[in-house]
Structures are given as structure tokens and as C-alpha cells.
């Protein structure tokens, strides 16, 4: 008998046996361990966080989480750290940027897929080239553009930048989803009296819920974790969490690992929730078109 479950039959598709489940569990744990490490650290005191060998059993404390939002001044008074605003900024900027990118990207992709221009592929390629350069290469001209136009440090500036940043990806991904749809279905709708708006909103878009969800989540994760543009182009009021996180690393006493881990743990939650809510769509979106319908 194999370790892969009792009486496993040839070619039978069924629940995995204990053996496979254990192997998958172990691999999953390896992938998850850095995240687990951070989450554990966020509940540790400074001593526990720095202990060698690392402490796996310790008395958890919520002190770090409190210090994310309040710190003690030299006079011993509690003072807000502004981190609440930075969390709001991250959510607002990433949400608006992704929304904009997905709306524009979906419309553009529909155009590219259904009403191809002369030289359609060239246009698509040009759009993709915007993502071929590493951000660091374009940061100087972008910084200057933002300075001149006064967009520097404003919400609208960074939101537009993130929308632009995600647009290439959205257009390409959504175009591949539109290409998968049967044009017969759209022609049938036109024949039955639907105008172009209805064809797009009532026939095409509802079929691509999964694709839109997948595109949004990928764009969101990229935007959520973005650091370089946020560092240079946001101001005190529009700062996002990754930048704030980097700033919290200074101090006379070295890196405050517990505090940092607490910020990261909180920072994980929104993406985690969004991905969890959309996971069914996400899977369908990623595997869309791989199986003949």
C-alpha cells in the first residue's frame, strides 16, 4: 500500500489522500513562513523579537499595534502617529488608481478587440513598452513633470500615475478576455435590436466578471505594494503606508522590528480580504479560455 491514501484507484479523480495533502501542506507552509514570521513578530515584545535563537513560544502583546497609531512623546504624552491617515491614503489611492485603470483598460481593450485599427498590434505593443522600463529609469522625467504641473504631493497626481502604471497590463489582460468571447453572441444581440451600449454593458461585460476581478486584483497588488513612486511623488498628507513604513525604520535604537511587523500585518489585511472575496472569480479569470467551453 502506498503512502498516498488507502485503495487509491488508477485514473480516479477524487479527494487527495493524506500523503498528498501532507506534502502540499508542507510546501504551503514554506511559502507562508515569511508571512507567519512577520505576524508572530508583530505580537512580540522588543526582547522576544530580537531573541536568538528565535522565540516560538512567548507571551503575546498588542503593544506594537497600539504604537502603530499612538506614540509617546518625550514628555510622556500619547500622540497620534498619523498612520491612520496613511492607511486611508493607501486604500483610497490604490482603489481609485485601479478603478480608473480597469475602467479605461476595459474600454480600450474592447476597442482593440472588436474595432481593430490599422496597425492594431503596433498600438498594443507601444502600450506594452511603457512597462518595459524599470520605474527607476523614468522616475526623473516623471518627477519633473509632476513638479511643473503641480501634481506633486496631490492625490490626483499619484492616482493618475498609478492608473497609467496599470493601464498597459489592464488593456492586455482585458483584450485577451474579450478575444475569448464569441462575437456571434454580440451579433445575435445586435440582430435582436440591442444598440452598441447594450451590447457592451449587458452582453460583454457581464460575461467578463471573472476577468475584470482577476485584472483588478493583480493591479491592486502591484499598486498596493508600490514604493518608489509613492516615496518621491506623495507629500505629507498623501503619503502611503509603504513609505510611512520605511520612515518608521529609523531611530536611535535601531529598527523597531515589532512596530514594523505590526504595520505590515495591518497592511496585509485589506489585500487579503479583497483577494479572499474575489478568489472564485480570480481562479476563473486566470484559467479563462484554457478549457474549451
Amino acid at each position, binding site marked *: 500500500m502506498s503512502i498516498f491514501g488507502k485503495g487509491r484507484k488508477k485514473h480516479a479523480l477524487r479527494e487527495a489522500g493524506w500523503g498528498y495533502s501532507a506534502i502540499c501542506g508542507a510546501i504551503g507552509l514554506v511559502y507562508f513562513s515569511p508571512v507567519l514570521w512577520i505576524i508572530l513578530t508583530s505580537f512580540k515584545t522588543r526582547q522576544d523579537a530580537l531573541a536568538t535563537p528565535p522565540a516560538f513560544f512567548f507571551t503575546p502583546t498588542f503593544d506594537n499595534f497600539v504604537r502603530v497609531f499612538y506614540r509617546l512623546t518625550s514628555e510622556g504624552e500619547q500622540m497620534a502617529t498619523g498612520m491612520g491617515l496613511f492607511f486611508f491614503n493607501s486604500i483610497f489611492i490604490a482603489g481609485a488608481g485601479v478603478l480608473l485603470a480597469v475602467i479605461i483598460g476595459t474600454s480600450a481593450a474592447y476597442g482593440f478587440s472588436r474595432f481593430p485599427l490599422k496597425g492594431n498590434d503596433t498600438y498594443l505593443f507601444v502600450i506594452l513598452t511603457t512597462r518595459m522600463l524599470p520605474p527607476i529609469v523614468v522616475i526623473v522625467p516623471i518627477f519633473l513633470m509632476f513638479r511643473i504641473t503641480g501634481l506633486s504631493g496631490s492625490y490626483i497626481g499619484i492616482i493618475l500615475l498609478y492608473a497609467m502604471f496599470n493601464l498597459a497590463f489592464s488593456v492586455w489582460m482585458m483584450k485577451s478576455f474579450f478575444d475569448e468571447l464569441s462575437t456571434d453572441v454580440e*451579433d445575435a444581440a445586435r440582430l435582436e435590436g440591442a444598440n452598441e451600449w447594450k451590447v457592451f454593458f449587458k452582453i460583454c461585460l457581464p460575461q467578463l466578471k471573472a476577468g475584470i476581478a482577476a485584472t483588478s486584483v493583480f493591479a491592486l497588488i502591484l499598486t498596493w505594494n508600490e514604493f518608489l513612486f509613492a516615496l518621491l511623488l506623495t507629500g505629507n498628507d498623501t503619503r502611503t503606508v509603504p513609505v510611512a513604513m520605511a520612515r518608521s525604520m529609523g531611530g536611535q535604537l535601531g529598527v523597531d522590528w515589532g512596530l514594523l511587523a505590526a504595520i505590515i500585518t495591518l497592511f496585509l489585511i485589506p489585500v487579503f480580504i479583497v483577494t479572499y472575496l474575489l478568489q472564485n472569480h480570480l481562479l476563473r479569470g486566470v484559467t479563462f479560455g484554457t478549457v474549451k467551453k
Partner: protein
Amino acid sequence: MSALKVTGLIKHFGDVKAVDGLDLDVEKGEFFALLGPSASGKTTSFRTICGIEAPDSGSIFLDGQDMTNSPMRDRGVAMVFQTFALYPHLSIRENLEFPLLQMKLGKAEISKRVGETAELLKLSHTLDRKPGTASGGEQQRIAIGRALIRHPELLLLDEPLTNLDAKLRHDTRAEFKRIHRERGITIIYATPDELEALTLGDRIGVLKDGKMVQVGTPDELYEAPDNTYVAGMVGSPRINLIDATRKGTDANPEIAAPFGDYSGGSWMQALKDFPIGEQLIFGIRPHEIVPVENRADFQGPTFDAEVHMTEPLGDVVILDLIANQSRLKMVLPEEQATAYQVGMKMTCGFDVGSTQLFAKETGTVIR
């Protein structure tokens, strides 16, 4: 009055001529079958007739009105796509309602028509499911339902049975006949399958390379095909087309086939115009060839052949014969065919009057 009249319709896609000067005239209430192999222009003709594609030239008249450049929704034409084109995100009920909502009908009228159509097509029990969960036959019926529910003047069916299995095909074919009879609408039915065309069509139009080759009733096409293409498309098993040459004298023409010289067919008079030595094609339907026991008793010409292969089809058997190196098929009832085994020699006969003759160069009939 004609429900649809198409004249000189041309449609290119790049360098490809999909429809090449199509003429079509379909009577009101007629069941017209458009027969042609894939890429003969059936789908493009349909898409142009209902307005999805704009023609390069030619005109389309619906009910006597020029609709060549009218928007799709004004044409009153419904079409069932080969792929069914169901809306996968809508329930079957919503699929049926969609065209009615576009027509801005009232709620009561919509639910009345949905009920009627579901009843007609036996879909009542599935209305709240998504099309993806329906069987192939049900999906087919939803597609038809969505077309019928608009009460169209003209219904175009584009190879509607291609995606169904053999049994369903048979049942659905009968269903089309019933719907046509009950609703009395004009139907044009595109198919690559001659059996579907012959059983369904009041008249059949045979398409080749985007052109109409011949239009006629099933009998006309079977008895008197205009060319070898139509002769080959209509009738199963396929007509035997055998190379032959013009022989005899100017006044008394004969043809020389590999297994004998013949004269006396309906083509005799016309054959006089062809020079001696002209290459011809001699056509004999497999059903017209009969086994001959005694040559003296048989009225028509006979020839000797060897049984090369047998294809039993249940009630009939197709015999593959070799007669002086040319191959031909004949059909016998099963009980009669058991006497003939592979490798056996036999004598066959046929009636010259039922044969066809074609010019080899052009493929057109000589009669």
C-alpha cells in the same frame, strides 16, 4: 410574393470572395434549403441578409422593400447561429426575454410570449437555469426560441443541427417541419447535409463558391441536375460519374463508357451537337443499377462487374463494383444483397433513359 429577393450579392473579405454574385428568390411561407459544403458562402450570405455584414454590391429586398442598407432591427429577420450564440450569463428565461425587451413590449405580453415559446419548444421546466447547464438539444431549442419569440417574418437557420448528435438531429429535423407548419413563417435553412436539405426543403438552392448553381424542388435536383456538382451533392450514395467519349455518327450518336457503348438516353438529341471524340461524363444513380440474372430477359444495356466491397447499412447494402477497371456503386435491398459476396462476378443492367450525361470540360448537363 417573395419574402426575400437577393440580386447580385457580392461580399469580399480581403482577397477572399465569400459571396460572388448570389441571386435568391424565396416565396412567402416557403421552407427553402440552402445546400453547400463549408466555405461555399452560406453563413456570409445569411450575415449579409440580416445586416450583420454590409454587402459590397447587390441588393436585398424583404417583402418587396429594399432593405440593402437598413439597420438590422428594422429588417424583421431572425437568425439561429450555428454556435447557438446564447447569452451565457442570463437565465434561459432572460435569454428568451432579451429580444422582447429590445422591442419594448409590455410585461404581460413578454410573459405570455415566453410561456408560449417555452411550451412550443418544451423548455418550460428549464426556464430558470443558465444555458450552460442545458443539454445540446435544449440549447438548440433555446436558440430557436429566441428567434421565434420575436414573431419574425423570415427565419434564417445556419447549420442548426451540426452541433447535435445523430439521434437529436433526426428529432429536431421533425421539429423544424412542425414549427414551419404551425407558424407558417418563411424559413431559409443552410446546411452542408443533402439529406437535411432533401427532407426539409420545399425547394433547394445549391451553392458553390458563393454562387447559386441550381435551384429546384428535391425531385428536380435529383432527376435533372444541371451539372456534375449538383448531381454529386444530391443523392446518397453519390451518383456514379464515369468518364466516357462521344462516338457513333453525326446522326446517330453513341457514347463509349469503359464497360460498354450506349445510346438512347434523353441526352441523344443534344449530343448530336458535340464532335466525335468529345470527353464526357456519364452519370448513373446507384439506385438505377440492378442485378441481371438472364441477359436475354433484360430490356436495357448490361455489363459484367466484380464485387469489390460491400457496405451493409441495415435494410440496404451498398455494393462497390469494378467493371472494366472503373469503379461504381449500386444499392440493393438487404435480402437481395446476401447473394453477392466480395470477389463474385455478376451481371448488372440499367435503364439508359434514367442516366445523365455531362460535358467533361464544363461539367454542365447535356440534355
